[in-house]
């Protein structure tokens, strides 16, 4: 039996029961919410419906802002697209609201796609600025188009009909809104627990990190922006058929800013935070709109002062919002391990001794500087090659050429029989190259298991929609099992369900190795794995790398710690000033005069100093 199997069976056996305290608490709360529309006075039911509609928009912003690190001030405008689309189709063309919904989603999706494609190749702040501008122009478009009723809007929007019943009473409508909210919450939760969700979170670590696992940054960002906008569109549809009329006011940029406030104050990383924020801000608004004008003896929407101050204070003192303060007291569930249905096919490994990576006359020029100048070397399967050299010798640049982070100016790099000199990082990863990072890039709020699973991103296929519907569970199970096996292999299985952020640096580096191994690589690239480690941690890392070597893993390691490198590698390539200075076994390199000079520096004899 493979050593990992016992571990997996044990993990499945210790899966949390179906009805954990958290599930029971949630069920109790759900019952309470289900009863509310029947118990509350009618005007309160309307407020509750609004809160649920706003929460849907805020959840979209959590996905966009909290998870991916982008933001939008134009979500009220997307809501407007959903609302106006259904309003026009149902009033002008007398179509069913059930056609208005998909039509609105489609239009919104297209607009979001366009805005995303235009802005998301640039720095993150262009998207929010574009959403402000587009929100402004949409607002005036609504207001100035006679067919849309101008600033007075469209009236007599028909109610939504379900099974022949027109939902005209606010109490009935509250249930439709609740259903929509619950569906959105589930879709979002499913998405975040999936392969795509982990990739979305990895986007925050910067483009280099996510691309290294085969994630297409740009496409992922565009897709998540579209989904987030379509949530708002759904909310707009609900809003239009709840109010039964639409005008431009609720879809202005200022309302869009309000939705962002809900998400920020509530808790920008949490689905429940968005719901909480929507409830808090909406209730507060009701209350302040009553209180402030009396206090100030004037008419006007003074509550924005309070909201603005609340947001600034949140950013200054509790950047993750208010929900985490509540979440701390709630019971947490351990991740469930799914039963295995299928395993990923394993990559065919090249026979030991056959050429795997070959670098020929690689050159990388930055302006006038040749950071890598005419370097050639080979790496055979089953071998461990060390790439060393003094600081500034060009090792990192060489590393970036091989991983596709920064393509070479000229020269050939062949990996697994393919020319990769101009290929992107994701494509090279899919050929079987997996790497670790000099500065550890983990998702500190996720467990070791989930972090490790991210390494298998490129082995699975499910897209965003499948993930939202939980149609990728077979793949997810395979990823879980593979991740558990690799955690067992590196000796971190016991901590599989702990948060990665709680590990010491040495273990975090080992976790990165496990994550790379999940990709089933033919070549493992380690970027200074020992940097910053203490003596004991280095010993552990060294032992692990030796074990991997004995298991036949091919490794290219860039490292400064000579003790570690000399005792581990089969061969060394030494770089200096962008060029290859020497190549050979550790014993040969240690005796090499040029290498000694490069490391210890030039001799400055006194006559030179005179």
């Amino acid at each position: 039996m493979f050593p990992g199997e016992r571990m997996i069976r044990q993990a499945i056996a210790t899966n949390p029961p179906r009805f954990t305290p958290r599930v029971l608490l949630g069920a109790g709360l759900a019952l309470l919410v289900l009863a509310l529309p029947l118990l509350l006075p009618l005007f309160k039911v309307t407020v509750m419906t609004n809160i649920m509609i706003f929460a849907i928009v805020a959840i979209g912003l959590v996905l966009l802002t909290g998870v991916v690190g982008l933001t939008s001030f134009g979500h009220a405008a997307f809501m407007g697209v959903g609302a106006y689309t259904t309003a026009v189709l149902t009033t002008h063309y007398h179509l069913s609201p059930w056609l208005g919904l998909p039509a609105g989603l489609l239009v919104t999706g297209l607009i979001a796609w366009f805005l995303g494609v235009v802005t998301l190749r640039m720095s993150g702040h262009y998207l929010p600025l574009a959403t402000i501008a587009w929100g402004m122009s949409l607002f005036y478009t609504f207001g100035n188009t006679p067919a849309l009723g101008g600033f007075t809007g469209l009236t007599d929007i028909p109610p939504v009909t379900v099974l022949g019943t027109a939902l005209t009473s606010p109490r009935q409508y509250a249930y439709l809104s609740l259903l929509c909210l619950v569906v959105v919450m589930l879709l979002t939760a499913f998405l975040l627990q999936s392969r795509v969700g982990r990739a979305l979170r990895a986007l925050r670590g910067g483009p280099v990190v996510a691309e290294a696992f085969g994630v297409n940054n740009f496409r992922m960002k565009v897709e998540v922006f579209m989904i987030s906008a379509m949530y708002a569109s759904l909310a707009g549809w609900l809003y239009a058929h709840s109010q039964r009329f639409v005008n431009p006011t609720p879809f202005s940029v200022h309302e869009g800013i309000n939705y962002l406030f809900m998400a920020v104050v509530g808790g920008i990383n949490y689905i429940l935070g968005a719901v909480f924020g929507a409830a808090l801000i909406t209730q507060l608004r009701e209350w302040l709109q009553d209180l402030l004008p009396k206090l100030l003896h004037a008419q006007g929407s003074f509550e924005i002062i309070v909201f603005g101050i609340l947001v600034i204070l949140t950013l200054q003192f509790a950047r993750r919002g208010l929900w985490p303060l509540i979440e701390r007291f709630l019971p947490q569930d351990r991740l469930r391990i799914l039963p295995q249905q299928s395993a990923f096919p394993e990559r065919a490994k090249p026979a030991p001794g056959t050429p795997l990576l070959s670098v020929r006359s690689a050159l990388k020029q930055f302006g006038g500087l040749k950071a890598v100048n005419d370097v050639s070397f080979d790496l055979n399967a089953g071998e461990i090659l060390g790439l060393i050299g003094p600081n500034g010798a060009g090792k990192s640049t060489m590393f970036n050429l091989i991983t596709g982070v920064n393509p070479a100016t000229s020269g050939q790099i062949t990996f697994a029989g393919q020319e990769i000199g101009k290929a992107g990082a994701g494509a090279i990863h899919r050929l079987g190259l997996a790497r670790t990072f000099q500065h550890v890039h983990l998702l500190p709020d996720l467990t070791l298991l989930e972090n490790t699973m991210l390494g298998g991103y490129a082995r699975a296929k499910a897209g965003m929609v499948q993930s939202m519907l939980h149609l990728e569970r077979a793949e997810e199970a395979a990823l879980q099992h593979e991740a558990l096996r690799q955690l067992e292999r590196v000796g971190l299985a016991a901590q599989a369900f702990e948060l990665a952020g709680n590990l010491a640096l040495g273990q975090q580096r080992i976790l990165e190795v496990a994550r790379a191994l999940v990709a089933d690589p033919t070549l493992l690239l380690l970027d200074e794995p020992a940097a910053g480690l203490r003596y004991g941690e280095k010993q552990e890392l060294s032992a692990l790398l030796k074990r991997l070597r004995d298991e036949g893993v091919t490794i290219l390691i860039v490292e400064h710690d000579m003790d570690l490198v000399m005792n581990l590698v089969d061969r060394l390539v030494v770089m200096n000033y962008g060029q290859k200075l020497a190549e050979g076994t550790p014993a040969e390199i240690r005796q090499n005069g040029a290498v000694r000079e490069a490391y210890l520096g030039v001799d400055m004899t006194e006559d030179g100093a005179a």
Partner: protein
Amino acid sequence: MSGNLLEVSDLHTRYGRVEALSGVSLSVPQGHIVSVIGANGAGKTTLMNSVMGLLPSQGTVLYGGEPMHNVPLEARVARGMCLVPERRDLFASMSVQDNLTLGAYSRRRESWKADLDDVYRRFPRLLERRTQLAGTLSGGEQQMLAIGRALMGKPKLLLLDEPSLGLAPLIVRDILLMVKHLRDDGLTVLLVEQNARASLAISDEAYVLETGAVKMSGPAAELIRNPELTASYLGG
């Protein structure tokens, strides 16, 4: 004046959960060059940044006998601590002369014209290129400019972080000789280098740093002959 211009004792610096410096102590006597050598990742740059106040740290840093604990970076510069950082951190899109002028920012109310002439006398290359943008200079010239900019602050203590980084051997020699001349003119220097032989050759005392702690120390002339030093660089 005699005694130690800089005294560091039991300095600890952490990055989150990682301790990059664990109890480093060293002293820099007035008018000496003291070098700190060690392999990459040993904590040399962290040490410089902590002494300068760019990074928060625990322990004591005495400069001119005064504790620097509550003194912000800008005030340390005004008191004559000037760091030439590893990445040089020049103002790339500004001219050479502007870079140098800004070096005197903390002394902008004094007259610093003479110091500018002095820097140009030491680095004639910079005078030739004074209207050129700093970002267009060669690596060696950038290093000269970085040192020149620090000199414009009229330092009492010059902190040099890896001046040899990425430079060809001949240029390294020129720059280190320049540092030696500065010492001969009375400046106190704390030099961080990976290039052990070259820096030991111009230093009075030296410390060898390994994983955030001082492994060896002593007069530079003795350390350079110590076989353990070679071992710590090339592995035992």
